[in-house]
């Protein structure tokens, strides 16, 4: 079997590695326009910050690919002919496949503002984006503006501020990451933004991008009518799937490449997974296009089983989890915690009075079953929470054993007693006795 994978991001690579295990004899080719080798996309920011070099964010050493007989092709796939089962590359080569996976990922959305094509205006998703950012901010950028209050926005803010640039963020919502974070969490992130001297303009959008005489961004005008001078402008308003190849092959596309639950496109030999795929019928409460590292990995693994195996394996999203870091503040979430309180849920939120530490547990009022966790400035054990959420463990049981989920390093201040005390005050009818603390000799 010749498996051709377009895209060497986490989805494509996970599929390749899984396929190599399942089918030791298969011929596997990874095609990427972006980079010779797989690299960690979330780590691009650390290259700019100087924590690492580009070669340090490659998850596998370069010998790994040849030793595992994974052929790498650094080229752009320009054409797809599903009738002859070939992919056309821009270097003149044509690749014949038995099975094809489109893992083409996504690119930053640019919006349609006047001036969004000016020099010094860009998104930040890909390796070429990093190159462009590096070149464009090497000199002459004193002020930068970032449009968008999400994860890429806060990453860009940290990167630019670390280089001494004055950063202003334009954020449409009334608070940071308002669609995801409840108000208390957003307020803690705000303290980070303030401490790092990031200026935030909430309820404000971009109106127009203004050019200087060289065709480079000179300022932006906001919807509030304010003109903010800037020599660099970051558009961090989300990402959109790369659909060019799928469209060229005549596959059905919508926002993404349309796929079945088996991640199969309209052609039986072509599959799509990761950022670029759009589920035709997502499970209730789940989204059709999901652009996450973790789901990319899951989809890559799932589709490999279908591509290699006898029985097609349906994609199952599984329990939600995610994590991020806002400057110095770590964030972990397990299960579902909506940004606004849900009617059929209690939300218990503990915050340290002075330090940046927060823990929120959502649970059902009737069964007390936990439904979600947010932590900021604390680390919680994923496996423990996955089991609790899976079993619908009552919040009283969870709090009594909270020490078992503590994943903070040794000697860190333990907050379980304070958390339980506040819970007992708030829910005296469900009073809890803390049974388990974190121990030096336990896992």
């Amino acid at each position, binding site marked *: 079997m010749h498996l051709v994978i377009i895209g060497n991001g986490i989805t494509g690579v996970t599929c390749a590695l899984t396929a190599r295990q399942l089918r030791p004899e298969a011929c596997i080719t990874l095609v990427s326009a972006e980079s010779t080798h797989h690299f960690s996309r979330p780590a691009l920011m650390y290259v700019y910050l*100087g924590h690492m070099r580009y070669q340090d964010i490659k998850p596998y050493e370069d010998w790994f690919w040849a030793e595992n007989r994974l052929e790498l092709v650094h080229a752009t796939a320009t054409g797809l002919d599903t009738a002859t089962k070939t992919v056309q590359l821009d270097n003149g080569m044509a690749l014949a496949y038995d099975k094809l996976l489109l893992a083409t990922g996504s690119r930053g959305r640019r919006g349609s503002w006047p001036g969004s094509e000016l020099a010094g205006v860009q998104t930040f998703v890909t390796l070429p984006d990093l190159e462009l950012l590096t070149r464009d901010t090497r000199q002459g950028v004193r002020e930068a503006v970032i449009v968008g209050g999400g994860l890429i926005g806060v990453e860009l803010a940290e990167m630019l501020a670390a280089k001494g640039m004055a950063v202003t963020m334009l954020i449409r919502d009334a608070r940071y990451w308002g669609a995801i974070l409840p108000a208390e969490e957003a307020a803690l992130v705000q303290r980070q933004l303030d401490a790092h001297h990031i200026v935030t303009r909430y309820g404000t959008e971009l109106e127009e991008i203004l050019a200087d005489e060289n065709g480079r961004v000179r300022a932006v005008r906001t919807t509030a009518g304010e003109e903010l001078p800037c020599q660099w402008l970051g558009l961090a308003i989300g990402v959109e799937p790369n659909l060019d190849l799928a469209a060229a092959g005549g596959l059905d596309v919508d926002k993404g490449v349309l796929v079945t639950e088996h991640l199969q496109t309209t052609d039986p030999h072509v599959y799509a997974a990761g950022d670029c795929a759009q589920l035709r019928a997502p499970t209730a409460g789940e989204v059709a296009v999901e652009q996450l590292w973790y789901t990319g990995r899951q989809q890559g693994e799932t589709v490999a089983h279908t591509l290699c195996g006898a029985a097609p394996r349906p994609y199952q999203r599984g329990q939600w*989890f995610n994590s991020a870091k806002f400057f110095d503040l770590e964030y972990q979430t397990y299960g579902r915690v909506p940004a606004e309180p849900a009617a059929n849920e209690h939300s218990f939120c503990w915050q340290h009075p002075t330090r940046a530490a927060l823990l929120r547990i959502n649970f059902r009022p009737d069964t007390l079953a936990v439904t979600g966790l947010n932590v900021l400035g604390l680390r919680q054990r*994923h496996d423990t929470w996955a089991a609790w959420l899976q079993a619908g463990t009552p919040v009283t049981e969870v709090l009594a054993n909270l020490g078992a989920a503590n994943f903070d390093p040794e*000697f860190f201040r333990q907050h379980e007693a304070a958390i339980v005390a506040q819970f007992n005050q708030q829910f005296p009818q469900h009073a809890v006795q803390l049974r388990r603390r974190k121990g030096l000799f336990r896992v």
Partner: protein
Amino acid sequence: MTTTQTLTADAPLPEVAGTEKLLLTLVALGLLLLLPATFDADAQRAHACFYAALGLISIGTLGWAGWKYGRKPPGVQHNNLWLRASTSRGAVAWITGIVLTGFYVILYWFSSPDDQGNFGPLNQLVHALDPFSQALRNKPSDQWFLYGAFYTLAILVMGVRGLLKYRHSPYHLIRTGSLMFFQLGFAFLLPGLLLAFQRPEFYFSYFWPLKQDYLFPDTVGYLLKDGGPALGVFMVFWTAVISFVATPVLTYFFGKRWYCSWVCGCGGLAETAGDPYRQLSDKSRTAWRWEVRIIYTVLGLIVALTALLWVGASGAVPALQGITQPLSQAYGFAIGAVFSGVIGVGFYPLMGARVWCRFGCPMAAYLGLLQKHFSRFRITTNGAQCISCGNCSNVCEMGIDVKQYAQRGEPIIRASCVGCGMCSTACPRGVLNLENGPRENRYQGSQLIHADSLRILS
């Protein structure tokens, strides 16, 4: 087919602020004053320059660290590590490496006192410490006292820098404090006081096989004789008990970190003065192959040599009489001086601060075998949260490619891990945690990630 892809340009560096320039000027002036302190023929002026130099270097470094780390909110501060020449094997790093290496060469082979008590090129520096040495040890200074003073000062000053830089982490605060305490108390003041009381200069924080001669027949005999019936016996007892009883027991409960990154002087210098260089360790599989080849050879050598010396001393094999002494000297020269000193510290700015600990130290090899096979210690990976960013591998001074484990959801159980905890600190997703758990299921990975089993190390 594989071409090395690199970025076309480096990211910009922030401008150097006036305050930073001023504080670094103090350090530079201190370094400059070491020249007259070494070469000025006028002894009094040389000695004044010596103390002024140490004062300026210390105050400048502390002020700089306070300015650089203290002003910012507590958190991981690794910006620009790979962009500055000094910490990314640039020109400044080469110069620093050559100066450090050169200093060790002079110290080891060109500064032994002659008949007139002249310590070669280091003479003025050595004698500048005479008053201090008299007060502490009741005897004049020598080249090793100078070295010990420099070494301790480096750990203390750069230790304070570490306390400022990692102040958000109680683990690093306590660990760095421990290293500073053991260096100052156990490896500097106590041996000096022992000399003042006419006792053997004994280091209670170094053990066989790192301090290889502490279990050599000659040293044991000398300790028993010069240490006196009580203290001498205690010193030999201490060495033997720590080496053969306390080490396995403590390593069983805590991993080798109880020694390598909490007590040991070599580790102390690496964790403090060497902290700016931790990212330079080689993470490649090739480096790992050299590591296992070399370090276990050194362990084998010192075990064989120690056994040989005792057989020789027993007189059972007369043929050994002539060769044990040269063998012992050869080991001391090649491993004790060249490897642990010249290469171990001299190459800090080029290969990272744990070259000796990783490739050469027989104590680390011994502790590592215990840690791998007879310990509760592991670094746990948190479920499926790893994003393969590589920050953990980057800061691993022992050159462990930590992310290989994290991205499969596997615990990290490696002989070389010294448990400094920096991978856990640097992880932006809270994925890694140093834990002492039960030995059952110690290798059990997370159920939330389906580890690819393609081999990395072999």
